[in-house]
């Protein structure tokens, strides 16, 4: 009887904690969306607090125009998608190599991954920037300026140095360590080489972690400002457009209205991520189960 009571109390407490925190997480998004529906007059009206009196699409329109979706939207999508694919593939290769094969320098390579994960990219951002403005490895003769293109991003993604790639390698490595070895052994007995085993057996069996890493990589590239703000001067992606949305009243800027429009633009830019998240949510939760089975 007493045990049942304690259990009941706990389930109520748990509900309050979980959904209270869920509210804290969602609150800013709810506010931002509600605020963006206000009309400019509502901002001056002190009786309007959160829910707008005169619904208006004014700020959404400003945001939409400011984003220039037809150009920026595509560029952002191409960038995030291709980088996501490259990073997912390269990280799964590296992680599989680290997790399953014994060779000289394995530990050293894993240490390198940890070090890459630990050093904030800002520390060497200037050196890296100059490397790509004078890209020259003594092959082509004259140095190339690779800014205002996606090439530096691709080079970094393909060599395991892209945004947060150390973390992805780490996560995937623990996933591969947990994968039963029977699958591979069966393939080896059939005479398959390790490389073809990776492509034919391992990749199809690691769909959950591949989806998870692709989701992270796509979403973080999509919202990233550190790379585009440094390397793009003429090209623009959604993340660099958002802070530049300003509303002017006559000659002076309207800071409050601009801020609302920027937040509305941010919400608009997040829609594709929410859609993607909706689709991959199950894989994300499932990969939690798998990543944890490293024994």
């Amino acid at each position, binding site marked *: 009887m007493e045990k049942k009571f304690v259990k009941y109390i706990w389930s109520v407490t748990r509900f309050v904690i979980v959904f209270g925190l869920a509210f804290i997480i969602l609150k800013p998004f709810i506010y931002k969306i509600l605020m963006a529906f206000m009309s400019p007059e509502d901002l001056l009206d002190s009786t309007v607090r959160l829910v707008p009196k005169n619904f208006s699409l004014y700020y959404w329109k400003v945001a939409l125009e400011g984003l220039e979706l037809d150009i920026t939207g595509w560029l952002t999508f191409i960038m995030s998608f291709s980088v996501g694919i490259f990073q997912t593939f390269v990280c799964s290769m590296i992680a599989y190599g680290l997790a399953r094969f014994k060779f000289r320098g394995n530990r050293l390579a894993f240490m390198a991954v940890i070090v890459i994960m630990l050093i904030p990219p800002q520390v060497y951002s200037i050196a890296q920037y100059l490397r790509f403005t004078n890209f020259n490895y003594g092959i082509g003769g004259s140095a190339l300026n690779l*800014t205002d293109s996606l090439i530096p991003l691709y080079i970094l993604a393909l060599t395991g140095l892209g945004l947060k790639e150390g973390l992805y390698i780490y996560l995937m490595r623990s996933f591969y360590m947990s994968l039963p070895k029977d699958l591979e052994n069966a393939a080896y007995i059939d005479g398959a080489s390790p490389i073809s085993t990776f492509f034919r057996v391992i990749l199809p069996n690691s769909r959950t972690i591949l989806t998870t890493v692709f989701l992270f990589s796509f979403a973080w590239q999509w919202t990233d400002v550190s790379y585009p703000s440094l390397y793009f001067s003429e090209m623009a992606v959604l993340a660099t457009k958002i802070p530049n949305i300003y509303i002017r009243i006559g000659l002076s800027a309207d800071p409050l209205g601009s801020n609302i429009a920027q937040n509305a633009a941010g919400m608009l830019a997040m829609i594709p991520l929410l859609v993607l998240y909706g689709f991959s949510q199950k894989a994300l939760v499932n990969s*939690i189960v798998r990543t944890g089975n490293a024994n």
Partner: protein
Amino acid sequence: MMQHKVPKKGNISLEKKKAFAGYFFIFPLIIGVILIFIPNMIQTLIFTVNDIVIDKGQYSLKYIGFNNFVTSLTVDPQFIRLLAESVRQLVTDIPVILIFSLFIATILNQKFRGRLLARSIFFVPVILATGIIAKVESLTNIMNIVEVGRQTGGVVSNTNFAGFEQLLSSLNFNTGLINIVVGAADGIYRVVQSSGIQIFIFMAALQEVPLSLYEAANVEGCSKWELFWKITLPVISPQILVCGVYTIVDTFSKPNSPMFEYINRLAFAQNQYGLATAMYMMYFLCIAVIIAVAGFAMSKFVFYNE
């Protein structure tokens, strides 16, 4: 490793083949580390002792010894203060984030109604609260301008809970007390926002704990409290270390932290590249020291089941 008694010759060739495959798989990493990462780090070290002038993508260096370090530490008005501030915040944040995410991971691993919904909501910050969304002034700031600015004429509070703060002050609470309460509420928001990946890793780790251990302990008559301290915590301790280190790095490398904004302004608005690099280096050394100390302290408690 998984081979039984195979004739010796075949064994060696398979081992060799596998070692070769290992190098093949990590080849991209080798290229990246040797051709890009290590040169970047060396270049960065060179930059710290030079004055850099950049003109149309070309740059020239002028050796000035340790002047950049001396300037950052003695002449620069902000650096020391910002550094101390970020270290202080980090030291208080790490334990809170770790305990919080472990707690949430434990809850989310239990079976209850709406678990799927709760799990999806807790991962929303991982996807959305990064990069630009964190950078565009949070709405709560707008709310402040609206709420506070309307009445006081421009005194804008820095917290996310301006309305709450006002409520307390209208009830004649002591200002110091208000600051503590509002600070805590603001802290919860920040902690929730930065615990996403940690919750993810802990949830995975918790599922790793072998059920047989719990069953055995139950037979011995352990209480739930004992189960947590004697079984769960030791088994997941390697992930606690990982999460701790990740938290430190993540907190330190947030692009919208005041420290980075200050250094970036120096570098890209005032073209003080050498000075900025030296500051980055010192900032990073601070992280390295904290990671080393925290890692060493935590590794004392890490238990490897091997």
